[in-house]
């Protein structure tokens, strides 16, 4: 057998090696560039905040000005309450909207909804707060967790809707045909087969939206308003961690500054725990070889 002719093999090999190393270096460099600020923020929070996180901080309400001690227990619970309301409204609405866009929205109206969702995504969060203020707070004549939850829900809808749409569009058409071919009605096939096939991505989208609004302060300023005391009634002004951090951070007291750091640390930990918990619970049902 004659040897195959190798054209310029030496220089070609060298170039390939160079390109390979270059591309790998670029990818690794990007990862580092992304991870460094994230880790830096977390480590800085840990250093500044961990000293003030103690049992009292997690179980007590704020002390009056001048007294030391106290905590943000009411704000931790309040944030949980507001996020529960927001997710309860925003996630089903967003998923429903995403299903419409992917399965039925290949038309002018669908384009309009898609455009609206993208614009809504870019509206400053304080404006969303004003909307919730004018449709709930002004009508009811008092602040409430409901209005705060609504403001955050409005912010979640476009993110969840667009993520759901993208994920549903990735489900191959053959899966839809298989479902329809079995004599399953379209609505049932969409929910139980198509949406289920895309569930991993849809859940990721929901978590992204959740994590984004969990740290929002501006929409809560004149909706949930904040509260120095315990409140579990969603129809009353309610404390929230981002609000509490904001108030404490701009105060003139060192003690409050330290507590604001601790609050920020707790907020991040809460988000990480919530996202991780959802991932663990939803991956439990996964099967071997499922894609």
């Amino acid at each position: 057998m004659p040897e195959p002719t190798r054209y310029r093999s030496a220089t070609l090999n060298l170039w390939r090696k160079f390109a390979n190393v270059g591309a790998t270096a670029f990818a690794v460099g990007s990862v580092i560039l992304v991870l460094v600020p994230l880790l830096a923020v977390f480590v800085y929070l840990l250093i500044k905040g961990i000293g003030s996180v103690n049992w009292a901080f997690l179980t007590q309400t704020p002390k009056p000005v001048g007294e030391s001690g106290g905590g943000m227990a009411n704000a931790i619970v309040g944030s949980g309450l507001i996020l529960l309301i927001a997710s309860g409204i925003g996630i089903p609405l967003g998923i429903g909207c995403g299903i419409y866009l992917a399965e039925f929205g290949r038309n002018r109206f669908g384009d309009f909804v898609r455009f609206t969702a993208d614009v809504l995504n870019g509206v400053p969060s304080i404006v969303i707060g004003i909307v919730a203020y004018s449709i709930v707070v002004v009508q009811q004549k008092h602040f409430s967790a409901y209005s705060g939850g609504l403001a955050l829900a409005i912010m979640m809808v476009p993110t969840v809707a667009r993520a759901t749409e993208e994920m549903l569009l990735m489900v191959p058409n053959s899966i839809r045909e298989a479902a329809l071919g079995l004599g399953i009605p379209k609505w049932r096939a969409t929910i139980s087969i198509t949406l289920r096939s895309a569930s991993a991505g849809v859940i990721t989208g929901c978590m992204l939206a959740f994590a984004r609004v969990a740290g929002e302060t501006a929409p809560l300023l004149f909706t949930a308003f904040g509260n120095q005391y315990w409140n579990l009634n969603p129809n009353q002004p309610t404390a929230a961690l981002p609000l509490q951090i904001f108030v404490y951070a701009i105060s003139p007291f060192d003690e409050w500054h330290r507590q604001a750091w601790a609050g920020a640390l707790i907020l991040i930990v809460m988000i990480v725990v919530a996202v991780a918990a959802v991932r663990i619970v939803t991956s439990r049902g996964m099967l071997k070889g499922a894609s």
Partner: protein
Amino acid sequence: MGVGIEVKGLNAWYGKHLALKDIDMSVRPNHVTAVIGPSGCGKSTFVRCLNRMHETIPDASADGDVKIGEIEVYGDGTDPVEVRRKIGMVFQKPNPFPTMSIYDNVAAGLRLNGMRNRKQMDELVERSLKLSALWEEVKETLHKKSGASLSGGQQQRLCIARALAVEPDVLLMDEPASALDPISTSKIEELIFQLKQHYTVVIVTHNMQQAARVAEFTGFFLMGSLIEYDKTEKIFTTPADKRTEDYITGRFG
């Protein structure tokens, strides 16, 4: 048991393009009928018209007189969902539901049509998997493995079991073996031979040897028309139409 299919004056469109022209065809119950023809001749469109899957494509439409057993497929007030429940379909590429276990894949049609009786469902799943000759290979891992984890040939037999579980009268197969290797193909062909005892089978294929092996009757489609329809033997030995002969002998297509 299988039922017969009577097609009269069936037309099908993609938008304004007429893809099927005035098809008349009579399919015998409990027999295997093959539909052959070159790419784009309308053979897939034809079987997709039989269970009203054609109209699920945007802008596609069909009309004509199709009677499957007692069902007027294009009759006024006929619910396409009801039609599809009676007529099973197997597609070209195996398409198991990726997030479901093997059991759930087969049970999907039953469960999503409202069946709640666990025992009855277990029986139907087992029966269907046995009919599709997959039971022995998967009975240990029914609930543990995803349908997508099986091999291509196994996936296609899983899809056949899934179609059989809803107890249709007719089974439509749209090139069921074209994505499979020869061994899996022969398994599917063997299976088709078994299935005709219980079902009427219509199979689209671009493989003429396959049509000759599995089907008692064969229809030859060309440019949206049914050119010739007769006993398979007749089609492959003494076709009446010159165009059929040209295709069979490999002069085009």
